[in-house]
């Protein structure tokens, strides 16, 4: 649905987006992560045709954004950062305006507006002036504008920014629901959000993709992922430690050996050996008659992964 090839954007000497390529298919919800100023919004602005790229191409639903911008824009719904709106309009008149610009008329327009109002829970405020709305309603009004023409592609720039936890949940569920039939890219700072509703995540830093995968895959790439935390009771702590480091899959063994056991963390020799280390530790305890009180494999956290990938450049 969305094809981005070698996309770059320079602002003067500053490189905001650097040779970025990615594609998103129908039914995919892509979480777009990165520190502030990493180029998330700039990329989204190029995808939606607001900013012309310095180099590279954007194709949406087979339409090239540079060659046939209007055909490509028709396929996209866009929620810009901070959800801009015409303050002097009411919610309904604004959505009517958006529907008209999307080429709708008469009863089709009416249906689309009322459907968007329903989907985004705007019923209570539909005749209210936009400048009197709370932030949550404003965000949802702008989101309603983005989905009014039932687009195949949704680009959402921080759709949950500034919302309270309940509203965040509403928007997340909306995204998840719509993700079944559309191609969605959304950017966020909230990593749990990515785990909650993305089928795939991309981390960008300084305009380049530094990681791309499912949230679980990315999480596994954190340094701590795959480490096994154990608490073992047995005759002599130091022996247990020795036994543990002799295991085939064990790397660094860290922890305190006491007279009656061992508590610590065992790093895997190879992260890809998913679960093998835990099995070995369990086997060891069984064969030596040790009491395994605790065994817990670290799943890795997206935060760690995010920090490890993006913090070098900030120092």
């Amino acid at each position, binding site marked *: 649905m969305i094809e981005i090839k070698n996309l770059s954007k320079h602002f003067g000497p500053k490189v905001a987006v650097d040779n970025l390529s990615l594609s998103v298919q129908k039914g995919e919800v892509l979480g777009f992560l990165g520190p502030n100023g990493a180029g998330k919004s700039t990329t989204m*602005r190029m995808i*939606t*045709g*607001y*900013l*012309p790229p*310095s180099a590279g191409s954007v194709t949406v639903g087979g339409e090239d954004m540079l060659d046939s*911008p*209007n*055909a490509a*824009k*028709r396929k*996209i719904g*866009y929620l*810009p*950062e*901070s959800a*801009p*709106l*015409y*303050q*002097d*309009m009411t919610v309904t*008149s604004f959505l009517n*305006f*958006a529907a*008209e*610009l*999307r*080429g709708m008329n008469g009863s089709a327009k009416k249906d689309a507006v009322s459907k968007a109002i329903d989907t985004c829970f705007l019923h209570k405020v539909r005749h209210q002036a936009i400048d009197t709305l709370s932030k949550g309603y404003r965000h949802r009004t*702008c989101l309603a*504008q983005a989905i009014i023409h039932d687009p195949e592609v949704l680009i959402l720039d921080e759709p949950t920014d500034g919302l309270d936890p309940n509203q965040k949940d509403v928007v997340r569920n909306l995204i998840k629901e719509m993700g079944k039939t559309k191609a969605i890219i959304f950017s966020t700072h909230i990593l749990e959000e990515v785990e909650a509703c993305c089928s795939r995540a991309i981390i960008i830093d300084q305009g380049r993709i530094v990681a791309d995968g499912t949230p679980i895959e990315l999480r596994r790439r954190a340094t701590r992922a795959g480490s096994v935390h154990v608490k073992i009771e047995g005759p002599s702590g130091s022996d247990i430690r020795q036994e543990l480091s002799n295991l085939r899959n064990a790397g660094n063994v860290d922890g305190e050996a006491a007279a009656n056991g061992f508590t610590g963390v065992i790093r895997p020799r190879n992260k890809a050996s998913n679960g093998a280390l835990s099995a070995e530790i369990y086997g060891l305890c069984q064969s030596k008659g040790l009491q395994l009180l605790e065994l817990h494999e670290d799943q890795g956290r997206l935060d760690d992964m995010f920090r490890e990938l993006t913090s070098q450049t900030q120092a």
Partner: protein
Amino acid sequence: MRNVWIVFKRELIAYFTTPLAYVLIFIFTLLSLGLTFYFGGFIEQGDASLSSFFSFHGWIYIIFGPAIGMRLWSEENRTGTTELLLTMPISPWNAIAGKFLAAAVTLAVALLFTVGIVFTVYSLGQPDGATIWSGYIGSYLVGLASIALTCAFSAVTRNPITCLLISVTLCLILVLIGFAPIIDFLRGAHMNTLADICNSMSFTWHLGELARGNMRIQSLVYLITLAGFCLFLTSVFIRSKRS
């Protein structure tokens, strides 16, 4: 065309749902009639013509044009709705034209409120109808040019006041370079060519000619071209701001 109409409708409603248009129209009517009666010696002249009435319009447009046009793009830039508008499946030209037309209609409404003076002058004597038409056309075109000029500068700023200041200055220059004392000064200093160039580029001279019933094609072409060029400049500014 449909897209121009949609944007036009939104902008026109925006003008008339806020007090802005009403205040501006009121001030325009008050100034153009007040100046004519008090300083133009409209009654004392004993001449059934509106040339003094129209001659004030050039000065009024220094403020009025920018005041109408300043919000066109600067407000969108300030609230970020430019991003919304320009990612819709319409060309930037649709948006520029729609916005400009809404401002043009607001200006037309303001001019319409001054027609009282036409009835006055008909009751005073036998004015030349064609001259009055020519004056109104001249005034309208100068107004449109000042709005278009403001429109261009509103595209580069997010602050309407900045836009107002720049446009007022430019409109002031366009009025002053045709102002009689300045032209006389240039001629006195034997800079006749410069005086002619200044005159032919000024709002004052073209408006003066049209108000006298001198409907010259050059004046119409100049004012329309100036407005068109400023709208073109708007599209350039909108594009350059994004790249």
